[in-house]
């Protein structure tokens, strides 16, 4: 019986699925997901939609931070550029949404390139501080470029339309979001089977050694910023269509920290981890809300405490994972799986 990883050829090392069951299970999961809007209420659809958007954003951040090792606290700025350029292209320039989202993502990539320039001179905590500053500068521009962004108030975004069919309900936008989540996940998964992805990992693990074996740090660091911000651009565009309004407060520094928390709790350097982290961070406030609702009988103020309870639980979760499970939920899942794979003969 097979009990462990035996990889005797490059093909077996590179393959995505190690056994036959996962692709079948995945196809079943996707089919099930396609049926969800028929049965789920708007509340859970809304939660699912937000998870979908968070997955795209978190994968983008994980490519930059988890795989390439460039610490960025500017992810909220990337998201805001994506959301605002999608909204402005559609509202002011009349570009249809299927063109606006890729265009906006392209713009965000260019913006990410600009953001990435400090990474050529700085690393580690200096880069983190530089991206923090870039976040504030972006936020300032968005608030004060009133002709384009309408300042602190923001503006409404019309629903996306496909062949004259408006995506104006949670159920309809659900298909748009997950139609983008699936390729986003597969692109990222495959990226790390290619030369580019391997170069990213080499830059993260030991930049000097990577440079010695011929990986151009200059090129790959900037490329990581470009790919990461493309993901953020798509996620931002979807955020604009999902909430149908863009305003500066939706992209505060706390959002950037939330995304960093997603990849830490989910698992840095793991695509699957980004998905778990996105789901965890989106579901946690909902669970707190449910808890507060059930507590209102005993303690009527419980609902007012959700925001602060969320901060405390998020903070504790970050601290807990960093101390006890630095590789996050992805690692927990792997341990769980290998336990059952060998059960009951664990040795």
């Amino acid at each position, binding site marked *: 019986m097979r009990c462990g990883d035996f990889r005797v050829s490059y093909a077996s090392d590179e393959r995505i699925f190690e056994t036959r069951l996962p692709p079948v299970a995945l196809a079943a999961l996707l089919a099930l997901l396609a049926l969800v809007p028929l049965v789920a209420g708007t509340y859970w659809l809304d939660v699912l939609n937000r998870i979908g958007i968070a997955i795209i954003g978190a994968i983008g951040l994980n490519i930059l931070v988890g795989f390439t090792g460039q610490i960025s606290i500017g992810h909220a700025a990337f998201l805001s550029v994506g959301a605002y350029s999608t909204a402005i292209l559609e509202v002011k320039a009349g570009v249809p949404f299927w063109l606006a989202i890729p265009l906006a993502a392209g713009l965000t990539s260019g913006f990410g390139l600009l953001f990435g320039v*400090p990474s050529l*001179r*700085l690393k580690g905590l200096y880069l983190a*501080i530089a991206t*923090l500053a*870039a976040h504030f500068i972006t936020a300032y521009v968005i608030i*004060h470029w009133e002709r384009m962004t309408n300042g602190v108030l923001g503006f409404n975004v019309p629903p996306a339309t496909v062949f004259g069919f408006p995506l104006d309900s949670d159920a309809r936008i659900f298909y748009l979001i997950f139609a983008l989540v699936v390729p986003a996940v597969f692109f990222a998964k495959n990226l790390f089977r290619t030369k580019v992805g391997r170069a990213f990992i080499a830059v993260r693990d030991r930049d000097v050694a990577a440079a010695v074996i011929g990986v151009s740090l200059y090129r790959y660091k900037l490329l990581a910023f470009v790919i990461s911000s493309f993901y953020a651009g798509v996620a931002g565009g979807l955020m604009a269509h999902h909430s149908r309004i863009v305003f500066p407060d939706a992209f505060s520094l706390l959002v950037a920290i939330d995304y*960093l928390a997603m990849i830490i709790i989910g698992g840095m350097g793991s695509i699957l981890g980004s998905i778990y982290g996105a789901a965890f961070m989106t579901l946690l406030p909902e669970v707190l809300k449910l808890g507060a609702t059930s507590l209102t009988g005993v303690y009527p103020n419980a609902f007012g405490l959700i925001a602060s309870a969320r901060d405390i639980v998020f903070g504790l*979760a*970050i601290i807990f994972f960093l101390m006890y499970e630095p590789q996050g939920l992805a690692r927990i899942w792997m341990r769980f799986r290998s336990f059952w794979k060998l059960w009951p003969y664990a040795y």
Partner: protein
Amino acid sequence: MVTDQAVFLLQLVITGVAVGAVYSLMALGFVLIYKASTVVNFGPSELVLFGAYVAWATILNMKLPLAIALPLTLVVAILLGLVIERGVLRPLIGEPIISVIMVTFGFASVVRGVLNMAWGSDTRPFPALFSSEPFHLGPVPVSPVHLWSFVTVMLLLAAFSLFFKFSLIGTAMRATADNQQVAQSLGVSVKGIFALSWCIATVVSALGGIILGSVRGGVDFSLADYGLKVFPVVILGGLDSVAGVIVGGVLIGVLENLSGGYLDPVFGGGVKEVAPFVVLVLILMLRPYGLFGRRDVERV
């Protein structure tokens, strides 16, 4: 005769120096932590908020006299420093830098949540510790709040400088900052120094919060914005330089006031908030070690 414009300029500079001095105080804690343990604290705002709220609670809520309330606030701040260092940072010694950065975000989030849960987000009136009747320095009106906060901060910074220079513990802190292994082999408790640097950081942040609270006459979560100014200050002054903190703080304070005063009409407001961060990016590009920092900055 001094023109109106010159008075305007002088006023901006004086306010800038006064606010900048408070930035110096808050940045001192940040630099001490970095020097001792190379940990970058990404939650400076929360430490400032914590001090301000605890001071508010002891002075106005519990109605304690100032002579008891202030020391009590500082003791609570020291306890917070110990809890953070013992509970959160010590287990992560030697972990990758992203872990340490994120864990500071983590405890900052917890502190913010606890403050919010305990006292809510309304603005709390803060007692004016100094009189607010302006007096004239030549033609320029100066508010005593600014003068006294400046004097207080300078006295504190002088006291800390003497402490680092002459006391045994201060010397041990400098030794640890210089070389941890050598310091440890000479009998310095490096872990103790880490804890001490966190305690000093929480104390100076709390003092900064109290001073800012009394200058503004109220405490709320917008005080957090002042805490974030620590980053431009330390990058300008040099991440590991105490002298840089004093110069950098005052420079950033003056610069943000001048840019706010003269550029706001051009860009339509809010320049004051963003100017320090523009300076930060420029300094990182041109001179990442800042004005007085050690030159062995990580470079690629």
